[in-house]
């Protein structure tokens, strides 16, 4: 599903965010990308949803070389990918419903389809009773659940999450992880960047560790 070949990303001559990175993530896999701040986790994720282009190397998503696609095709790539951020990135002036519907409206889906899918997605994350609230009226955990609903409502092939539980306590983080695991169980490939070792110890999955923009280990637990 995701293939990286000798990917290097540098912002300045003396600053390399990713260095000659090659890896492959299969369809339906659940992968942690771990590493300290500045290890290159966010840069890697940003390149996967084409927010940045690599300085060198190739990236293939679902067989499509995204380092060569034009700007006009990027939106269509992103429709295959759901993204969840640490700071949720919600529209605070819009209702919960509108925030989730936004992703479908942006893809030009019909109104009846939008309302049906939004309700299903919010039910999935347990927020169907808060449709008309605004994000600021909800807790951090609930806000992250809206963000996850927004990412999942489009039935993405890949779900990218950048420190999704970074601002949440352990109990809420566990709930959030449950949502990712359920999405993964339905076939969505999940790539979750985190610097929290507790997270992958509690829910062991394939763990790619980055340091200084390079893969230092690629661990696959036997139980998975």
């Amino acid at each position: 599903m995701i293939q990286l070949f000798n990917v290097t990303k540098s912002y300045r001559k003396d600053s390399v965010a990713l260095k000659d990175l090659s890896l492959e993530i299969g369809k339906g896999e659940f992968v942690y990308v771990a590493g300290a701040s500045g290890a290159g986790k966010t840069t890697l994720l940003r390149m996967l949803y084409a927010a940045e282009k690599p300085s060198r190397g190739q990236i293939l998503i679902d067989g499509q070389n995204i380092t060569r696609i034009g700007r006009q095709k990027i939106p269509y790539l992103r429709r295959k990918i759901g993204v969840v951020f640490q700071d949720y990135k919600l529209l605070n002036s819009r209702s919960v419903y509108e925030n989730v519907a936004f992703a479908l409206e942006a893809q030009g889906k019909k109104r009846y389809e939008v309302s049906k899918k939004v309700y299903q997605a919010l039910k999935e994350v347990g927020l169907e009773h808060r449709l008309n609230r605004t994000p600021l009226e909800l807790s951090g955990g609930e806000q992250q659940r809206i963000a996850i609903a927004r990412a999942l409502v489009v039935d993405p092939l890949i779900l990218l999450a950048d420190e999704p539980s970074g601002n949440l306590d352990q109990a809420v983080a566990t709930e959030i992880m449950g949502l990712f695991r359920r999405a993964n169980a339905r076939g969505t490939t999940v790539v979750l960047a985190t610097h929290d070792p507790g997270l992958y110890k509690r829910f062991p999955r394939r763990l790619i560790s980055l340091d200084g923009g390079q893969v230092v280990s690629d661990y696959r637990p036997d139980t998975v």
Partner: protein
Amino acid sequence: MLDKMRYFIMRALRNMRQWPFLCAASVLTMAVALTMVATFFLVVVNVEQLTQRWSKDLQVVVYLDRAPAPSALTQMVSSIREMAEVAQVIHVTPAEAMAQFRQRLGENAALLQGVDNDILPGSLEIALHAQYQQRDGMDQLLARLKTVAAGHDIHYGQDWLERFESFVSVLRLTGLALGGFLLFAALFIVSNTIRLTFYARRDELEIMALVGATERFIKTPFLLEGALQGLFGGLLALLALTLIFKGILVEIVHSLWVTPAAFSLLFLNGHQQLILVFGGVLLGVFGSLTSLKKLIQI
């Protein structure tokens, strides 16, 4: 398609409702800019109208400093009448000139008490055919008149008309330059005001790009919003222009003009009013477009 259009319009209207202050700032900026340009246009158009009017009233007057003998006068009048440009020749005697002067003074006619009736010179007022009421070709006519009415003063207000026409040319050029500059400044201000509204909504733009919205999908509601703001700005400018015209321009002309009824100011005709409003729409769309180009990076 209709569903999408409806969605775009709803979003544009919602954005405007959501940011009423910024929306009002954009509308007002466009209204002020358009009003300034349109007011200047009105001034130029009316001054041009005035010049054309004055050109049409062009009349040549031959002042008979020394009264010619009746036979010489008859000969002179018939020679002038034969000229192709001339429609009518009226002989005004010194007494008639004095009577006209007295009439013009109205209540102050008493000032002329004791003044001789023949103190003013007699004259020949030469009216021209409509097609010759212009300065072109006037020199040739004057040259012929000078031979017929040799030794008499010939006037047709050439000097001031020429000066006035040069003034109008300068005014027209200034109008073009200033109008262009004002429009450019308006576009710049509108573009920046609209950009401010976009900055306030950059999260929305970022999230839209993130969830797979195409550039067209992101831009269309903003362009519609710009067009709507431009429409309101244009209508507001038309209203302001009407008020300026009726409340200021007409009043100024009436206070300056001795006979206001003789000269009515021109306002924008229906076609020009449409252009003004449509100009607002274009200004809004271009303002949005230039801002969006810099802001949206998918």
